[in-house]
């Protein structure tokens, strides 16, 4: 069995795992952090909007740190934790959020504004008329009008959100055509709403460039999977963390935690050829709602430091922490906020543990 040693192993690359990893990197100063994941969490289903922090205060440091992280990764969030706003969705509903990636936040309901809902000919997964018709019935003080643009086809094929996003990333001429088409529409409106297609990799700079060319704010609406807005967040955050020196082991699930005498020695990963063992001083499990099987004997509860407890109320291991949907399986609403706060808290708890150790 292969073996490598880390200060911290984070399991899971959803929002909770990424927040935990980023917090650990920032808090520890040069600790060896490994992020082990078997896929990208739920990013592909949404856009990363934050609606609810599970009861913590609006000025919680987790939020400050998260915003610093997304800024650094080129996918800044906007919003105010104290005040909920409504974002239009592709189903013609309004989604309450407090924080959202800038490109989505641009679309928030602001009374008295005129918004163009822009469909793209050949993109059947989004229907601007449907969205505008439904939004207008909600009488939220905005006026929505459906508009339509044509983008050059590849080989005469219909579009898909992924195809458009990939072209946005790769082809400057495509970006220019898109900007021109949107500018033509934008003249009569305060904001243009489009399905999320603005690149899997694009950063705030590219978005700003587009808006300058269009002449008004451009807002994205997350589509049904794949949600390009979510993928972008995931891609950029992972790349940012990798740039920060985090070792990312993707694609293979953790099959077991090695727990001995109430101490987690590390994790086993089912990599090809031979399983690998990552030894760690602390482990954060942020592997999503379907991974409780990694915690035999877990009662479902945790202590104040986010450590899973057994049925007698003892922690399973003193250096094992939980974050994200695994920790709060019931919290379906506001999962993103809880993930950010939970990941942050788990990482701080993990390093606090190390500090305790050092002083003894």
């Amino acid at each position: 069995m292969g073996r490598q040693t880390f200060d911290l192993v984070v399991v899971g690359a959803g929002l909770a795992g990424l927040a935990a990893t980023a917090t650990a990197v920032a808090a520890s100063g040069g600790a060896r952090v490994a992020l082990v994941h078997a896929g990208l969490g739920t990013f592909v289903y949404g856009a990363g909007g934050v609606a609810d922090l599970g009861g913590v205060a609006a000025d919680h440091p987790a939020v400050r740190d998260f915003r610093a992280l997304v800024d650094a990764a080129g996918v800044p969030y906007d919003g105010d934790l104290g005040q909920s706003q409504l974002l239009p969705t592709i189903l013609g509903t309004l989604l309450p959020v407090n924080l959202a990636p800038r490109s989505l936040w641009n679309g928030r309901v602001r009374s008295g504004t005129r918004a163009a809902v822009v469909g793209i000919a050949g993109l059947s997964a989004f229907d601007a008329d449907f969205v505008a018709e439904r939004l207008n019935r909600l009488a939220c003080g905005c006026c929505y009008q459906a508009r339509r643009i044509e983008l050059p086809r590849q080989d005469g094929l219909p579009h898909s959100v992924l195809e458009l996003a990939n072209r946005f990333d790769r082809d400057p001429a495509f970006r220019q055509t898109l900007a021109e088409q949107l500018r033509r529409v934008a003249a009569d409106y305060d904001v243009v709403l489009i399905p999320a297609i603005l690149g899997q990799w694009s950063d705030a700079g590219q978005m700003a460039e587009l808006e300058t060319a269009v002449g008004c704010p451009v807002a994205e609406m997350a589509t049904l999977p794949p949600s390009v807005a979510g993928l972008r967040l995931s891609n950029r955050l992972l790349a940012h963390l990798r740039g920060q020196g985090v070792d990312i082991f993707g694609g293979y699930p953790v099959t077991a935690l090695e727990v001995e005498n109430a101490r987690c020695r590390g994790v086993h990963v089912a990599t090809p050829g031979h399983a690998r063992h990552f030894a760690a001083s602390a482990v954060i499990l942020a592997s999503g709602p379907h991974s409780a099987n990694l915690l035999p004997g877990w009662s479902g509860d945790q202590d104040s430091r986010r450590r899973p407890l057994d049925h007698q109320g003892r922690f399973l291991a003193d250096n094992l922490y939980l974050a994200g949907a695994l920790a709060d399986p019931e919290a379906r609403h506001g999962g993103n906020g809880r993930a950010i706060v939970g990941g942050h808290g788990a990482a701080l708890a993990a390093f606090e543990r190390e500090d305790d150790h050092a002083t003894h």
Partner: protein
Amino acid sequence: MDRTQVVIIGGGATGAGILWDLSLRGIAAVLLEKRDLANGATGRCHGLLHSGARYAVKDAEAARECLRENRILKTIAPHCIHDVGGLFVRYPQDDPAFFTAWDRACADIGLPTAPLSAAEALDLEPNLPSGILGASTCPDAHVDVFQLTLSNLQAAVARGGRFRAYAEVTAIERRGGQVTGVRFRDTLSGDEDSIDCEMVVNAGGGWAQQVAALAGLHVPVRCDKGSLLVLNHNLVTRVVNRCRKPGDADILVPAGPVCILGTSSITVSGPEGLRAETDEIEALLKLGTELVPCMAESRVLRIFSGVRPLYVPQGADKAGGREISRGFALLDHGVEDNLDGFVSIVGGKLTTYRLMAEKTCDLVASRLGVDEPCRTAETPLRPPTPEAVTRKIRHLLPAQAASIVERRLGPAMAQLAERIEADPDMAEILCECEQVTRAEVAMVMAVDAKVPVRTINDVGRRCRLGFGSCQGTFCGYRAMLEGYRQGLWPAEAAAADFKRYLDERWKGQAQIPNGKQLEQLMLSHDLFGPSHHFHSDGEG
């Protein structure tokens, strides 16, 4: 006030078969169905086109009937049938005496079988357990129940028959000893209406008792619930039967890209509110794993239950559901209850629906004084597909999409091709599991369709959209938008129907005990709940 000669109540295979048979004989008829086609046992059955082999030992007459109908349906409705063949597999834990009895019984009725060694059987079906003793082939097949019902309706409509979905008969009008018409209610809009007629046929399946009660009569029907599990892919490529006295979960039917395990047999009080119980599902899975061991790790997509309407004449009410004959009964209430013009057809099997329709229509025709013989046994349900049309579709669509749609649409592919040629975007696939194109969905949704749709679920019954692993989470949304674009419904109505659709789909998955489908279900909940604020479980 609308008029016709015959009103048929119940849009299952039997009712649809009757509409077709009457239309072929030139008798004007209207079929009223309270939901959509195949809402009852037809849409909730195993889809096994019996060869008769299952009944050979116990009931030679029923077996002969099945064998005859099996052959007829394979010639008149090949597009509804996956002629995959069947195996009767000998498991070491089963009674060897039954094996010999089965061989003899099949030979007696002339049912073609061929013995296979264990090795040969395993070669054909590698997912069978390695310890089997051997197997025999038989001419079982899979029948697409929705396609079969739809084809009967389409053929009938082309001949002047009329079908009305979402029309629940609420009263049967009579004057003295004669039926004069029915009243019905639109179950989506609530509107009431009526039709005058000379005869009423009760093809209400599990509801036959309730339908007869509308005329003040009693038709004794026992409801025998059977539950089935749909598995995500073909674990076997032929129908696999366990060679033993018929029991629970001893048949696995490959049904297109999925396969279906069944069934249980439990007497219930009525045809509504059916639900598979947890222990029932567990028992099915356990027995299924004996049939095909890898079932233990396989993904269950959906669980559903239907009722077999078993006719129980006075005094014949014996113990368990399977003891009662699967044969059918045709009741002429003019003779039995002094109500002229009212006929009930109850019991039977999907496999014998055509025969049931034939007998019913013979009676109806004779009462109406019409002298036309039954021609459904020789008349193909659908004209052949011109070679040029097939070629065109193969050119327009990927191979797999072309071959699937060829079965579903046949000659109507000409219209599909027209739509795609007019707008190549219509070739886009909306439902990936069943390879349904936008063009096909648009055709199904067209206002001039022979059997029109009013809900997303109706779309599924016509082209199988939403029957695969996402269970409509993604393709249901796409179909809703397509309906919106086709002018089928305005935005609000579209959204409302999509919510109902999700509810129904979620319900069908909620009982799945574990595994990937539950994750898929949770995903669907999260996507439309927290992510889009569109719909949550239980919200209206």
